[in-house]
């Protein structure tokens, strides 16, 4: 693409792909960048194009028809030169400049080599998705204990199962596709511990009943789990993991209504791998640094505040997908379309969707958001989760700060994750609090929603790549 772009999109997951397709249909020139080796994001994660015949993963997917339609449109535009698709590109900073945005990225196609890339456009759409939200427990840092998203990612992009006897735990519907996917690859899934009580669904039945598509997907997983005889245990949790060089067992327990283990119900199960996840936390680095306003979400996350058209509070900056509220792939696609329609309108271009279809997308977004809200309320983080911790439990994996040290910091007056960080170094290591932040925040007994700290760069860089910028 030789002419300057009208729009940069960071993130080629469901949201970014859908946004790009709509923006391209409206005649805009688009740069779409993603750090991965293929488009699709987390939901439609695939091996790189050239490896698909040797690493078959199609059977692990849902909604592939839409994925293929979006991919084909994108590659057609890329051949025509209207789309500049850049995989292997990690965006590490985005700043406002004059009337637009500058995105700094590194091209890691030949990693560890890094090539600095600077992109400019009048408008920017950030669709960087989310990562698994974690709660520490004794043994969660043993090798073989992974996030459920990590298990899924290894399966969907590498065709690899991380164990042969696996226990899954946490909360939320995402446990089910991971269990089904592992079973499809011959893994024995010995238990799925879902902390929530099924009754919680009945408290907000409206949005759940109004989403037949979700029921169909859920029923599919339920059948797969039955076929493989995978026991799903409601109101239970993995409260510890044991092992040495690798996890060898987990301890599970029934939970009381506040989420503390019911005495006498503990059971040990032998495993060689574990997957845990407590919903998702949106990946907000670029957006927080750009200064856009955040808002609270019922799942306990801070998310980007957007208007009806996915505009952030910064002029020319849009967001879609998990960054504006965790809601899954279908919602991400719809929000991507809405965001691109706003970009078109704000650039003075004609809309792609006519009024009637735009209204239909808006009402579908409203329904999906209501569904996501009901799900979040039905799958909360158990209030007493910290009763699983001993003082020795590592909370900050990078700086190896234990629960006991964080509790003392609280006793000394620290009342949120930022103050705990100053006193203990929790959240100061390589991951910058991405893994322990929400947990540290809860341990500091804060009543406020967790807001991630500002991170100067969204991905660590070599000095060489930084030096390239001066050239």
């Amino acid at each position, binding site marked *: 693409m030789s002419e300057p772009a009208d729009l940069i999109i960071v993130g080629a997951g469901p949201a970014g792909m859908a946004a790009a397709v709509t923006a391209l249909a409206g005649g805009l020139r688009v740069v779409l960048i993603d750090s991965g080796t293929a488009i699709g994001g987390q939901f439609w994660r695939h091996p790189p194009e050239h490896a*698909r015949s040797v690493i078959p993963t199609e059977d692990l997917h849902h909604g592939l028809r839409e994925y293929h339609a979006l991919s084909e449109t994108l590659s057609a535009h890329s051949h025509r030169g209207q789309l500049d698709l850049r995989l292997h590109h990690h965006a590490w900073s985005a700043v406002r400049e004059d009337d637009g945005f500058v995105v700094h990225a590194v091209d890691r196609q030949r*990693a560890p080599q890094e090539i600095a890339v600077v992109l400019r456009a009048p408008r920017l759409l950030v669709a960087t998705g989310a990562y698994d939200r974690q709660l520490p427990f004794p043994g969660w840092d043993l090798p*073989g204990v992974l996030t459920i998203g990590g298990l899924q990612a290894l399966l969907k992009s590498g065709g690899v199962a991380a164990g042969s006897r696996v226990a899954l735990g946490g909360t939320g519907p995402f446990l089910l596709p991971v269990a089904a996917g592992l079973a499809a690859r011959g893994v024995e899934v010995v238990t799925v511990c879902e902390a929530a009580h099924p009754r919680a669904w009945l408290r907000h039945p409206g949005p759940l009943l109004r989403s037949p598509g979700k029921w169909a997907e859920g029923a599919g997983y339920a059948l797969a789990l039955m076929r493989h005889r995978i026991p799903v245990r409601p109101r239970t949790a993995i409260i510890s993991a044991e092992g040495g060089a690798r996890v060898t067992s987990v301890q599970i327990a029934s939970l009381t209504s506040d989420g503390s283990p019911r005495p006498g119900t503990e059971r040990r199960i032998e495993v060689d*791998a574990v997957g845990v996840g407590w919903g998702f936390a949106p990946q907000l680095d670029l957006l927080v640094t750009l200064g856009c306003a955040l808002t609270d979400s019922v799942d306990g996350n801070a998310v980007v505040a957007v208007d009806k058209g996915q505009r952030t509070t910064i002029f020319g900056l849009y967001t879609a997908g998990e960054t504006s509220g965790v809601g899954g792939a279908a919602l991400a696609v719809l929000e991507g379309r809405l965001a691109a329609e706003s970009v078109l309108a704000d650039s003075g271009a004609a809309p792609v969707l006519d009024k009637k279809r735009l209204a239909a997308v808006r009402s579908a977004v409203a329904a999906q958001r209501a569904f996501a809200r009901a799900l979040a309320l039905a799958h909360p983080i158990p209030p007493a989760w910290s009763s699983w911790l001993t003082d020795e439990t590592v909370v900050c994996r*990078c700086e190896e700060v234990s629960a006991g040290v964080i509790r003392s910091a609280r006793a000394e007056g620290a009342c949120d994750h930022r103050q705990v960080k100053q006193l203990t170094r929790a959240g100061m290591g390589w991951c910058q609090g991405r893994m322990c932040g929400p947990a540290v925040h809860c341990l500091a007994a804060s009543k406020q929603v967790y807001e991630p700290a500002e991170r100067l760069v969204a991905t660590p860089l070599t000095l060489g790549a930084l030096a390239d910028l001066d050239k």
Partner: protein
Amino acid sequence: MSELIIDGKPLAFVEGQTVAAALVAAGRVSWRTTRLGHRPRGVFCGIGVCFDCLVTIDGVGGQRACLVPAREGMTVTTEESTDE
């Protein structure tokens, strides 16, 4: 199958896998120890956010094994090889 060299030994992988996927496929879930407690670590998040999976690749340290695609002839050094 292709091969990379890890701590001086060959490791087979399927073209398209990341370094972490190749290691996990070979049954290894840890390849590093932590600075203070010398705890073993390997792959945790699988998507580049936790930094548990760090390795040295072709002489460059601090590389996330879960992000870097394995390449024929690539040399990977783990901390386990240098730590006594």
